[in-house]
């Protein structure tokens, strides 16, 4: 196992400064749907200009570079302790180079560590051993504005008339989009988990965000629900930045998980329009980024 610190640094730089092509394409399509001269159209034009400028200048798309969330899939026999050290070193260096804002704040003292290194959960790193000889690392930079509008529901929910079925899931997800208004930097992408316990359910909702924008769910029931939720969320008319308009969400990604008989959680993670997810694939002699 060689040292991957510089590869991780490049992954962080790319995630912070350049949107994935599928996300940018969906933003362009959303811009074109807004009426000429509207505040929504102006907002979409501005954020697309910003995306181009950030890529050219190599500066962060958004100043809130969020919690760096890494999912590391490694071959058998690799040291996760060393991988974690290398990831942490890369995150600290990316902060020094102003690709990331120092974001790790001690909850008791209020002190910002200054280098994005906090406890074991900051940055967040998930490890999984997989078959094959490649190291695959996914990174999501998720800012606080959109994280704050995430929501978890326990079904049934009488106030919303939401029962323990996909119809109930639909209702609570629409409620979450309504409550978010423009505060999560609409138009956003929804990661939804059905099931799990309170903790695993929120993790599941974040994992769903790693799917590509145009990747339909393999389960036809969930594929249909994703499509319906996207249409109906946009009927709320909240629009870019909450200015009113055609596009409130760019996509909906659902993950179904096992649950306890007594529990039926629905967790919604709202990802802002600056959907900064990137993948790195490292073989024995070269590294590719997606």
């Amino acid at each position: 196992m060689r040292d991957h610190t510089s590869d991780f640094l490049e992954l962080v730089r790319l995630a912070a400064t350049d949107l994935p092509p599928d996300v940018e394409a969906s933003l362009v399509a959303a811009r074109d749907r807004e009426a000429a001269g509207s505040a929504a159209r102006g907002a979409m034009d501005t954020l697309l200009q910003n995306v181009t400028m950030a890529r050219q200048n190599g500066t962060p798309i958004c100043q809130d570079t969020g919690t760096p969330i890494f999912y590391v899939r490694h071959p058998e026999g690799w040291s996760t302790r060393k991988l974690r050290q290398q990831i942490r070193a890369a995150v600290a260096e990316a902060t020094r180079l102003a690709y990331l804002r120092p974001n790790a704040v001690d909850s008791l003292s209020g002190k910002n560590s200054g280098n994005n290194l906090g406890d074991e959960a900051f940055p967040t790193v998930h490890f999984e051993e997989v078959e094959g000889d490649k190291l695959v690392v996914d990174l999501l930079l998720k800012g606080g504005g959109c994280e704050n509008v995430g929501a978890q529901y326990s079904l049934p929910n009488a106030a919303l008339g939401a029962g323990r079925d996909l119809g109930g899931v639909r209702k609570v997800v629409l409620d979450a989009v309504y409550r978010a208004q423009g505060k999560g930097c609409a138009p956003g992408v929804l990661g939804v988990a059905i099931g799990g316990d309170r903790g695993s359910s929120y993790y599941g909702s974040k994992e769903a965000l790693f799917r590509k924008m145009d990747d339909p769910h393999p389960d036809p029931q969930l594929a249909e629900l994703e499509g319906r939720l996207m249409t109906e969320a946009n009927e709320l008319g909240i629009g870019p930045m909450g200015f009113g308009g055609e596009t409130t969400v760019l996509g909906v990604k659902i993950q179904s998980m096992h649950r306890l008989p007594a529990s039926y959680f629905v967790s919604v993670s709202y990802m802002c329009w600056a959907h900064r997810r990137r993948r790195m694939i490292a073989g024995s002699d070269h590294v590719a980024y997606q």
Partner: protein
Amino acid sequence: MQKLSIPIPDQAIRKLKVGDPVSLSGTMLTGRDAAHKWMVETFVKGTRQPQGDDQEIYQAIKPLLDRGAIYHCGPVVAGLETGDYRFVAAGPTTSIREEPYQGDVMRHFNLKAVIGKGGMGPKTLAACKDVPGVYLHAIGGAATLIAQSVKQVLGVHKLDFGVPEALWVLEVVDFPAVVTMDSHGNSLHAEIEAKSKVALEELLAD
């Protein structure tokens, strides 16, 4: 596009209506969660005794906030090691967290413009009417683009709050924003929330 220069006269504020695009020039201050809590507890309500350099900073920011603008922003700043600060990325943060404090801060300092994203609630809207002032919505996430309008970092207070939470003193030219809450009691955010509530209720009835 209405051009505003800081300090902003009441007459200019009264002219602004929800939906107007504006471009702002002059000296402004960033301030978010820690700054608002500190200002209100230490100087507006006086529930906490001033400590350390609190009084000096208060005297320094008072003239900047009088007829001035505060920006809800936690920037990415280069040059931290040398003190030769440069704003690299500086989009707005979500403003609603300052709702418990903002109206009081506007009245205390005679603050004319609050800049952020996502809008604010009834207490701030009432202060916009009284002071008078406006809420200006910057485009969330457009951080590299907005940083171009920051021509110079003139100084920083309370850097011990951390880079995002410090009060940065900025010289801006043509800072772009849209009026979404005006001094006449109108809020685009209240309007969109009410409309989307009706749409939600129709969908839930299905």
